């Protein structure tokens, strides 16, 4: 008898959770169900999801209008499950002693499209910084992290300078930052926590004159790590949910998500959020609670969960 | 020049010309008759076309693209032109066997080498093959030397033995004509001697055409000799006549070693 397969793909930010859930779920099922986990990035994952190639896609941002449209056109409905909170972390080399904190404005100076080929030295970011070449690493354009970061910092998703080293694989970004004294990069918190000995995180100052906030679990829970705290999601396809193993996987995730998220380095949602999500799953309440264009920046997840789906 | 018609004709080459794929004409309108159960020797300087002529008799040239025959070779008793395009070269080769310059046994056992011609002809009966192999090996004067190691690899034989094995291989299928292309040029004198004796015995059963660069060998083994030069047949006749009183100056020059 061929074991059944659950196909998960999508966000590389969510990947550590997906991987952990997949691993534990397969162990719990004693090999009766198999799970594949890809890392195509949020955008790549939605593309495959809306083509019906995969059952579940991880996302580090809510689905976009174009993606919702693609899914609708293909007749694919889904349930949106929140996974955890992430502190999108800006990281620098361990030896970087100057950039302990950066303002949103400074991040914009560094990353805005106009910076391409121009802002290449730390001194250009702040005159007090040393004369050190600035090298940048970041997620590829198929990444939700890229979309979220650009939206949060530049105000418009996808607006970014282009002369940085982009990779869909956050591990590559970590490695790049860890190796270069003048490097700066951004990625999900889990990747920072797994590599704390090789990187330093940068505290973010939301607005001029405000206090710098470090990307920590506590600050995320307290809602002060703004604007870079964000929710992560799973999107589960309706058609796939008709297969028991996909439903089992989703339920397994909702029951163990809090524990596993914490283990891999994300901030678990309040218990209430998982309960609401379990209700959506049980009642087959399809659709996204994030109307396209509605900001996700600075929202409380329980409130959004209660919204009417679209 | 017309050959004097000898005893009975086994094969007759008529106006035979041959062109290699590169366009070079290697044979120029050759007329030659092979006498039944006689040995005919082809002599001539290197590159004169001896091998080319010999290899027409089993359509060996068909293996390579672009080669072209003109004229015909008629074999008796059935008067068939073996160069005719309707005739499958494989049929021709089943009736006319060939022994090459360098011994070229297959890297198989002695037995399998001799049996191969039969296998190709679809013979399956083990007993029949056994008989034929023994007969052929005896015919090639090799039986006594190898009868205890028929299943040993043929490569382990000496050069002379290998060449006799190749003769046995050719004999096993009862060919009507046997072609030899300088069969002893890679062999030592003793092996050469045994092959020459063998040819003397074989001509009782089969018509033989032999190319040799050694005039003395031609004198020793053949009944008729043809002298070729630059693709032409210069002179043809009984061997003793050719070697004692050649009619052509070129033949005489060659035989007395003025060139070659």
């Amino acid at each position: 008898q061929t074991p059944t397969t659950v196909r998960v793909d999508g966000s590389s930010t969510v990947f550590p959770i997906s991987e952990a859930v997949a691993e534990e779920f397969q162990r719990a099922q004693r090999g009766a169900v198999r799970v594949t986990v890809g890392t195509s990035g949020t955008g790549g994952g939605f593309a495959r999801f809306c083509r019906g190639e995969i059952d579940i896609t991880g996302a580090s941002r809510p689905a976009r209008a174009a993606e919702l449209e693609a899914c609708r056109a293909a007749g694919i409905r889904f349930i949106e499950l929140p996974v955890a909170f992430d502190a999108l972390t800006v990281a620098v080399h361990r030896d970087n002693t100057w950039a302990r904190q950066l303002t949103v404005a400074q991040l914009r100076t560094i990353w805005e499209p106009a910076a391409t080929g121009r802002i290449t030295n730390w001194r250009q970011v702040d005159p007090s910084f040393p004369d050190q070449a600035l090298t940048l690493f970041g997620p590829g354009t198929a990444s939700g992290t890229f979309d979220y970061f650009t939206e949060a910092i530049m105000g418009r998703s996808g607006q970014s300078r282009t002369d940085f080293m982009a990779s869909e694989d956050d591990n590559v970004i970590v490695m790049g930052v860890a190796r270069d004294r003048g490097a700066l990069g951004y990625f999900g918190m889990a990747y920072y926590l797994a590599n704390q000995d090789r990187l330093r995180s940068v505290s973010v100052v939301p607005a001029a004159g405000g206090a710098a906030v470090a990307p920590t679990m506590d600050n995320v829970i307290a809602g002060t790590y703004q604007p870079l705290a964000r929710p992560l999601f799973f999107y589960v396809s309706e058609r796939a949910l008709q297969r028991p193993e996909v439903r089992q996987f989703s339920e397994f995730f909702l029951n163990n998500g809090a524990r596993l998220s914490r283990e891999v380095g994300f901030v678990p949602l309040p218990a209430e959020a998982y309960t609401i999500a379990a209700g959506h799953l049980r009642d087959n309440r399809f659709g996204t609670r994030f109307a396209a264009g509605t900001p996700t920046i600075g929202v409380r997840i329980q409130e959004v969960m209660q919204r009417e789906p679209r | 020049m017309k050959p004097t018609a000898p005893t009975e004709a086994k094969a007759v080459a008529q106006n035979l010309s041959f062109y290699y794929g590169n366009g070079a004409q290697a044979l120029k309108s050759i007329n030659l008759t092979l006498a039944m159960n006689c040995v005919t020797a082809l002599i001539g300087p290197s590159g004169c076309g001896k091998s080319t002529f010999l290899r027409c008799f089993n359509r060996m040239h068909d293996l390579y693209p672009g080669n072209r025959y003109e004229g015909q070779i008629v074999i008796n008793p059935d008067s068939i032109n073996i160069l005719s395009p309707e005739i499958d070269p494989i049929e021709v080769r089943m009736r006319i066997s060939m022994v090459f310059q360098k011994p070229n046994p297959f890297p198989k056992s002695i037995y399998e080498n001799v049996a191969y011609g039969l296998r190709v002809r679809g013979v399956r009966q083990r007993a029949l093959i056994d008989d034929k192999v023994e007969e052929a090996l005896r015919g090639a004067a090799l039986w006594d030397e190898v009868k205890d190691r028929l299943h040993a690899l043929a490569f382990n034989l000496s050069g002379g033995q290998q060449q006799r094995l190749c003769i046995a291989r050719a004999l096993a299928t009862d060919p009507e004509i046997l072609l030899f292309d300088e069969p002893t040029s890679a062999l030592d004198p003793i092996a050469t001697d045994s092959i020459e004796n063998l040819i003397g015995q074989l001509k009782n059963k089969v018509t033989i055409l032999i190319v040799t660069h050694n005039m003395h060998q031609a004198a020793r083994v053949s009944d008729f000799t043809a002298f070729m030069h630059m693709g032409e047949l210069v002179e043809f006749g009984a061997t003793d006549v050719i070697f004692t009183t050649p009619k052509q100056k070129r033949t005489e020059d060659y035989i007395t070693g003025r060139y070659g």
Partner: protein
Amino acid sequence: MSIAPQELQAVRSMIAAHKRWDHIFALSALLAMLFCVLVLLALIVSMVADGYHRITLDFFTSFPSRHPDRSGILSAWVGSILVISVTVLSAVPIGVAAGIYLEVYAKRNWLMDLIEINITNLAGVPPIIYGLLALGLFVHMWGLGQSILTAGLTLALMILPVVIMNTREAIRSIPQSIHEAAYALGATKGQATLHHLLPYSKGGILTGVIIGTATAVGETAPLITIGALTFIAFLPPAPVTEVFPFISFAWIMDPFTVMPIQMFNWVSRPQPAFHELAAAAGVVLMLITLAMNALAIWLRYRYRKRIRW
């Protein structure tokens, strides 16, 4: 003509000077070569040093995991074997058949010239281009997905020219006199091929197949192109089943991972523990490919030695 002693002396010192250059050159060339061999050794030593303590039985019987010390290459080596089986089973028959056709049957004409040009050029096409072909053709047009079948066929395309060229080389190394001997006895081309050419060239053909297979085992780029970088912690269904017809091909459409991809995955993780795993996987992979190459080199050597035409 006599040689004066002092003249001879001059000649001798000149020869000595020339020979000194000889030795200097030989030494530097030897060093150049040893440098390459040393790089190979350094590569092996550094990987073994990093990875050897990970190579335990568990390493081969565990699936990859987010916990480095629980990770293993079970799904990777099984995947490699299955993918390579598909590759060999599809490339070898076609490659050998094509090689035979070109060496034995083909007549010189424009079509054969075209085929030959194609084969030599295909041999020089970068592997990643085959990945693009597979992505466009197998994955999207034929809808085979990111399956073992797709991967196997992709690698088959890649090694096909190798198999064809080695087959031709092997057949060509049989002396013309053996071909002619067979035909002179009345063999048809089919018979000559079956009875002589194939048996005598099997060593060379095998060598080519092994070299091609070794390349395929270590190849990563075309598989990445078809999108095979995936977390796989399970095995495909067994090809042998308990119920009739006892053979199942369900595995062929299964998702997969292979050794080099697993290694690539671990290389690109930043934590040193995963680099150790990468090194361990690299050691295993190298052992396999180098052993296959060594086998091929040895086979070639042995066949050359055994058959002296």
